[in-house]
């Protein structure tokens, strides 16, 4: 069978569309959880429209729910969003959007759109078109469904009685667990950092206003980053296992012996594999 040059582009668009539509429905969960936490439907929608990054949005909702320190809640939400900056570093050269297109494309950077874009066989004009098609298809479908879901979930949750009756208080932690899950499979350092972060937060909880223990848990990541002996895998190789690490690595050293990174596995909530 002869492969026409449009095939990779079409395949990328199809993968992105399917992933976006599937993951975007969880906007329902965010909208419902946000309103159950005490955010208004308008506030939930502003977060989905502008922040447009699930983990940060759930984190801010959790801070509001606990009636805690909003400054600490905002800080943890923004810290969680910092990985999107790393995705941007990696995508900049591949997408090469300019001017107003870049302002719009920045909004579309998420775990999912990055995973689909990086899963495309880059190279040549077709490769570049496929990367763009995958990114834009994921962005478009996920943005629309995530925001429509947020609105529907937020309006629907207001009509329910006590959020706990429907288990809405478990939606946030369950979403975090689904987002963390693929990272825990990457290596021992990730699991150690996760355990240390959880213990730091729990130990700090009786002594701090709610929200602050989450920010303090970043110390676990700082410790692991500074300790040369963290884990048994050499830093360069280990970083290559994650999308963000791969992004930064290839930006500095194209010839790094990274093996084959797996962007799809490193990102995306339930470990969705866009193109298999």
């Amino acid at each position, binding site marked *: 069978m002869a492969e026409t040059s449009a095939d990779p582009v079409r395949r990328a668009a199809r993968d992105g569309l399917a992933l976006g539509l599937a*993951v975007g429905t*969880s906007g329902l*969960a965010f909208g419902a959880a946000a309103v159950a936490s005490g955010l208004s439907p308008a506030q939930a929608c502003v977060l989905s429209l*502008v*922040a447009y*990054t699930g983990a940060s949005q759930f984190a801010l909702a*959790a801070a509001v729910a*606990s*009636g*805690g320190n*909003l*400054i600490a*809640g905002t800080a943890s*939400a*923004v810290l*969680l*969003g*910092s990985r999107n*900056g*790393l995705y*941007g*570093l990696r995508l*900049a*050269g591949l997408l090469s959007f300019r001017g107003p297109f*870049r302002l719009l494309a*920045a909004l579309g950077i998420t775990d999912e759109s990055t995973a689909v874009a990086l899963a495309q066989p880059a190279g040549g004009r077709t490769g570049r078109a496929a990367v763009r098609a995958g990114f834009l298809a994921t962005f478009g479908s996920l943005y629309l469904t995530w925001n429509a879901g947020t609105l529907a979930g937020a309006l629907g949750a207001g009509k329910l009685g006590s959020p706990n009756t429907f*288990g809405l208080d*478990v939606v946030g*932690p*369950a979403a*975090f*667990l*689904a*987002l*963390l899950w693929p*990272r825990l499979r990457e290596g021992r*350092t990730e699991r150690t*950092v*996760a355990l*240390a*972060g959880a213990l730091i*937060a729990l130990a700090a909880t*009786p002594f701090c*206003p709610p929200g602050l*223990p*989450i920010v303090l*848990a970043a*110390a676990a*990541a*700082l410790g*692991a*980053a*500074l300790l040369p002996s963290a884990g048994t895998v050499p830093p*360069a190789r280990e*970083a290559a296992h994650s999308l*963000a*690490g791969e992004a*930064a690595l290839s930006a500095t050293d194209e010839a790094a012996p990274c093996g084959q990174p797996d962007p799809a596995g490193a990102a995306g909530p*339930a470990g*969705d594999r866009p193109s298999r």
Partner: protein
Amino acid sequence: MSATWIAVLVTAVCCYGLKLAGLTVPPRWLAHPRAQRFAVLVPVALLAALIAVQAVGRGESLAVDPARLAGLGAAAAALLLRAPFLVVILAAAGTAAALRALGVA
């Protein structure tokens, strides 16, 4: 403007700004391996902390809510079975809601 609105707007603008900064700044800004490792590991630490605090935290104290823990257990089981995101969420909320409805927890 309420404090909650300010928190929402600051979070929204900063999260967008980080994305734009990534697309715009020269890549060598994050060239240091330790900076990279920190940035890669921060979400792991924060997500784990959020799960722990929401699972057994209540304001400034720790409290065990059996239905909530069972819901999280159901989410973990669904993840082990490689269920999609929405199924994980529904399993967690459904388990907690069912246990509460039955008066078990």
